[in-house]
């Protein structure tokens, strides 16, 4: 945020012609902008609502969407502490999908987001493909009339959830099944499939998702990583592995985005390692239609707003 580097004047390259805060379509839906916050790094989209700054009206200024923390069919209390570990080039997390469950989310959170006018993409995860369909149906019946609920991102890629989370995003048939049941329940909202980078061939999974009806692909979720506590010689996280995020994964997110764009031509929402407008530009250069800011949003609630502002031509 206030780093010296970041206060240098913004220099946009000539090829950059998009307006990041203008409407654009993904599938059946028009989004108010191309800079979003990533799931899990901005809670349910409400906790930053009252944070003030001398540079922005609010952390929501210019955002195209807030992707809410993934909710599951039942509430989850998540993994044991510590769940976070700072790394020199990012962070490792093992939150374990702690969430209030989609029912409470639908009753309490989504209406409040609608009331406050926060453009929202709801992130969902499940342990059986059909549960995606059930949650999407419930969403549709509660929120069909909502103006600010733009879509659903199905999270097929939680490397840190033990119970089978891995397999969802690793098998093209399962990916297709999860997408298909969601699509059926969501006639008029954007449907995004969020893929894991921890696979041999992400483009194959993207193609499967598209064929089953996804409007776009979000990549990447976190990269499986591990950190050791030198003193004890043990992994820092009780579950050993965590999800690596932040600047260190930017080259990986860019590669996965490019693989999908090049091999499938699908709309891609780029995620991974974005902190500044330059990082975001790299995704757009490869053809991403929008980007999400994750880890950077945690340290700086205005990180995404900053990217949107900096990418707007004067």
């Amino acid at each position, binding site marked *: *945020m*206030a*780093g*010296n*580097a970041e206060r240098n004047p913004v220099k946009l390259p000539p090829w950059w012609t998009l307006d990041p805060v203008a409407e654009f379509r993904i599938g059946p839906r028009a989004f108010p902008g191309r800079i979003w916050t990533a799931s*899990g*790094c*901005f*809670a349910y989209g409400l*906790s*930053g609502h*009252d*944070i*003030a*700054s*001398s*540079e922005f009206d609010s952390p929501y200024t210019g955002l195209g969407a807030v992707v809410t*923390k993934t909710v599951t069919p039942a509430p989850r*209390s*998540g993994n044991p*502490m*510590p*769940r*976070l*570990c*700072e*790394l020199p*080039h*990012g*962070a490792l*997390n093992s*939150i374990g999908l*702690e969430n209030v469950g989609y029912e409470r989310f639908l009753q309490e959170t989504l209406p409040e987001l609608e009331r406050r006018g926060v453009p929202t993409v709801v992130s969902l995860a499940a342990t059986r493909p059909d549960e995606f369909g059930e949650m999407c149906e419930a969403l549709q019946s509660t929120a069909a009339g909502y103006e600010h609920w733009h879509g659903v991102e199905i999270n097929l890629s939680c490397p840190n959830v033990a119970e089978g989370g891995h397999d969802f995003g690793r098998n093209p048939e399962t990916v297709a099944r999860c997408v298909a049941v969601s699509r059926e329940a969501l006639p008029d909202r954007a449907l995004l499939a969020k893929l894991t980078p921890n696979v041999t061939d992400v483009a194959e999974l993207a193609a499967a998702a598209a064929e089953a009806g996804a409007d776009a692909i979000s990549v990447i979720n976190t990269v499986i990583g591990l950190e050791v506590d030198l003193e004890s010689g043990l992994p820092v996280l009780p579950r050993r592995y965590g999800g690596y995020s*932040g600047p260190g994964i930017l080259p990986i997110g860019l590669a996965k985005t490019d693989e999908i764009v090049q091999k499938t031509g699908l709309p891609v929402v780029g995620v991974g390692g974005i902190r500044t407008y330059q990082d975001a530009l790299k995704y757009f250069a490869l053809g991403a239609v929008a980007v999400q800011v994750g*880890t950077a*949003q*945690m*340290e*700086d*609630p*205005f990180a995404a707003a900053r990217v949107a502002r900096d990418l707007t031509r004067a």
Partner: protein
Amino acid sequence: MNPSPSMVPARQYRATVLSNRPVSTGLIHLVLECDAPFGFLPGQFAMLNFTGAQRRTFGRPLSILAGEGLRAEFLYRVVGSGTADLSRLVPEDEMTLLGPLGTPFPDRPEDRDAVLLAGGVGLPPVLAWWDRHGRETDRAYFGGRDAGDLPRELLPAAWKMSIDRRQDGDDERLFEGRVPELARTDLAATGRGKSFVLSCGPLLLLQAARRLATEHDWPCFVSMEEHMGCGYGACKGCVVPLQPQPDSPDPWRNATCCQDGPVFDADDIVWNRIL
């Protein structure tokens, strides 16, 4: 208890170092000047971070010691690389500050005297409460490692102090032992009516504070420490296990240390899941 005191909204500040100097062998007093007026309630904290190449993925949570006008004050100990870098800042260096954050200590219930127990870097929130609300009938105790570790210039005259072990030449009035023992001894000597306990410091201190409170049937509020990512409730990285909701099948429920805390009613915490 009184209802939660009215909150100052959190803000992202650019701040300049005014001073950053040791006030004891282990504690450093950091004074920042913010780019906008700064307010807080005792028990709240801020996330501090560097600018430029030193900037970390996450800010460092530090309790607010004082704040008025553009000034914000902190007290910290060097424990790792971030606090080590912090200790090297000199006047005019720039930082970022997100705050005030979290749920503060409650205001005083008029009918109760405060019993304050602070250990080491647990001093700032307790001292901040004292500065704002303290009265003559309150009792405050602070414990350091040794005499050199006590930040004398910051400690009010009325506070009693303990150190782990007295050396030759140390002030005779220093209690030898831990803060809870000091508190027990002192409270037994002076007698106590209806009180309530506020505490911040190592986990063992918080637990001892709670036992003390339970014995007297006093309310007890403790300020907890957890590793933090965001500091504003966005990441669920800092949870503290609380007693389950009455009708819930779960043996506990998670609260965020940064937003629901760091101050909790000691009876709400499921201590055996922490220790």
